[in-house]
């Protein structure tokens, strides 16, 4: 357990919940990065489980389908020796009309320690956190079009494996910004750390005043990609065509698809290519570059998801742990 001694023994982390990236401080982001680094080393070991959240119960409350994020949180919790429970919507009373607050009340009565929530409504996570106060930790795993903070943190972590810092780097997010919580969280995190964030997509998929979040807005791919250090593609939901926001996916691909030609012609040599997944291969990104290890860190993003989520769970639950028990025992 020697590596754990490198964890900050008196963390300055004060948040009971991780609801959004917008309210994270640079210091907090760096704490997550430092812890994630430690956990990613631990995950390389033959026995890759630490007992620091032993006895804690974490509930994954997913109102939207998700395989990778839910599995990633589940693995993160288990690697910290917490008991993780999946509260699937299809198998619960939520289907029978139970409201979010009713569900929260039930979970509270069961004596759980943390909830990881994904919900189709922006702000659902706020509502849950407001209800719980400091009694249960809430971690946002994606709410509507609002935020997906752990995705942005794992994206940053993946970038920091390729570069010392994102400060001054041109990072371009390509695609459906309007419906993307990943884009919003990334704009917050990356701009706080001094990156120059650019977004590009069809004008019908760019939200009003997105520039005021701290990014430069384009509707043409070439200037957006020009000299980019990082290109982050977003998933294009196929129903955007049905709702009239774009005429066809083919036209989208023609205008905004990221392919080898565009990447190699405009972006910096050695550009880092990212995608939060799942990919629509051949639509927003072509397979040849998505699978090209010279550019793509897409599989690293998935792997890093576990260590970053371990860090987040440890930090929010660590507040409760400070009084003694597992955390201090382990570190001591």
């Amino acid at each position, binding site marked *: 357990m020697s590596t754990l001694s490198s964890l900050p023994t008196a963390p300055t982390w004060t948040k009971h919940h991780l609801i959004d990236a917008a309210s994270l401080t640079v210091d907090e982001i760096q704490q997550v990065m430092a812890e994630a680094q430690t956990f990613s080393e631990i995950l390389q070991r033959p026995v890759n489980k630490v007992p620091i959240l032993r006895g804690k119960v974490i509930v994954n409350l997913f109102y939207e389908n998700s395989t990778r994020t839910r599995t990633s949180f589940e693995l993160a919790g288990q690697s910290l020796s917490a008991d993780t429970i999946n509260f699937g919507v299809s198998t619960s009373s939520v289907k029978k009309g139970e409201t979010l607050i009713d569900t929260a009340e039930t979970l509270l009565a069961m004596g759980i320690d943390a909830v990881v929530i994904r919900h189709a409504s*922006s*702000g659902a996570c706020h509502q849950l956190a407001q209800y719980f106060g400091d009694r249960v930790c809430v971690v946002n795993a994606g709410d*509507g*079009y609002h935020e997906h903070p752990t995705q942005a943190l794992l994206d940053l972590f993946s970038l920091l494996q390729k570069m010392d810092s994102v400060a001054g780097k041109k990072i371009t997010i390509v695609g459906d910004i309007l419906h993307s919580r990943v884009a919003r969280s990334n704009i917050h995190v990356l701009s706080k750390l001094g990156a120059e964030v650019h977004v590009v997509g069809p004008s019908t998929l760019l939200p009003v005043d*997105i520039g*005021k979040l701290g990014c430069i807005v384009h509707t043409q791919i070439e200037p957006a990609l020009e000299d980019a250090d990082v290109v982050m593609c977003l998933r294009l939901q196929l129903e955007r065509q049905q709702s009239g926001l774009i005429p066809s996916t083919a036209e989208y691909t023609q205008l905004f698809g990221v392919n080898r030609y565009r990447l190699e012609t405009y972006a910096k040599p050695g550009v880092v290519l990212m995608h939060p997944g799942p990919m629509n291969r051949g639509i927003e990104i072509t397979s040849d570059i998505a699978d090209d290890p010279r550019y793509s860190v897409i599989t690293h993003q998935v792997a890093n998801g576990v260590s970053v989520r371990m860090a987040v769970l440890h930090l929010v639950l660590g507040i409760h742990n400070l009084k003694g028990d597992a955390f201090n025992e382990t570190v001591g």
Partner: protein
Amino acid sequence: MKQLVKGGRVIDPSQNLDSMQDVLITDGLISAMGPDLPTDDVDELYQLSPNHWVTPGLIDVHVHLRDPGRLDKETIQSGTEAAIVGGFTAVACMPNTQPTLDNLSTLQYVNYTAKNTARIPVYPVVAATKNIAGQELSEIAELKSHGAVAVSDDGHCLMDSRLMRLALSYCQMLEVPFVCHAEDMDLSGKGCMNEGYYSTLLGLAGIPNVSESVIVGRDIQLSRLTGGHVHFAHISTRQSVALIREAKAEGLPITAETAPHYIALTDAALTNYDPDFKMNPPLRSEQDRLALIEALKDGTIDAIATDHAPHTPDEKALPFDQCPNGVIGLETSLGVVLSTLYHTKLLTPLQIIARMSTGPAQCMRLPGGTLKVGSPADITVIQPELKWVVDVTQLKSKSRNTPFKGKTLQGRAVKVFSKGKELLLDNAAVLEPVTLTKEAVTIS
């Protein structure tokens, strides 16, 4: 029976009057007004201090009383009691009840219930189209002959422009105002807040300003075509204000109202996703807020109406994008308006009372809104300096969905007379320990 309201500052926009006057009420009618009226002969004397305002009874031309149908949210009785606490002596109720107020029997139910349970007049606004479905006109003439004061599909916009033209033409014939919920439903889509920086930040679908103003523009043109009187409900955008100002300058039969929340709050207040800040139209930007205040000042907007829209806590506990639109406002309206417009010196007392009493009466062609001798004694006594905290547990309304919960407001109605009858205000009495005294002088 003679009552004398003595020593207050009388503010009556219908007579352009703002001075210290006594008001004499004889058998429910205002019988004399003047400085220092004699107290002999008077059965009841209300001695006020010079900082009390004596105004024509306030009128709210846009409330949802939920009766019939959703008595768990509000009833005609609870809603009118809330109105009295708010200083109102009359309200106009909207027709989106269950069943819809689009037929004679439902109208008779409303009239009957109001007569038996409400202490102030309730003026029914009936549905413009059957079941507010936007397909066929309601039997407006028959409903008018039974007390309907206006028609509206409020909550929905009549998107069929041809039907809107017919409705306005018919309303012109019957001399009935059409209360227009101006919203292009396609432009609004699934929007649940103002479209702008905050909707982008919060990841909520936005409703653009033009969603309102394109319909305002359309209906101004249809008013010009048909001569029908369009009263624009709950105006929220600067673009609508500009169009209405222009239409009025042209002399078209156009009137408009806005709500207290649009002049006190902006979409910046939504950062906590509090469903008590969700209404339709949504809270707009600061630019819009300022334009609305300017429009209230110059009379482009005639009336402040609450759009009082009660909902149960259970419904408002749903996530922001799923919970119903609407906030209650009857009990906070005056306090919000005085805090926002009077104590900031943006509007004069005469302008404020014009928008809350005389103007609303004129928009809907209602009696009231005046203290002229001979008028029914509908009077509101206001203590403009009184500070009070909005305690939702003390509301007369059955619902609690107000964005002003816990807020300190300055200014409140302390006494309301309806046709000379004094309607008690227990809340005000608690809050107002000394300034208002009433001495009954009995002459033997």
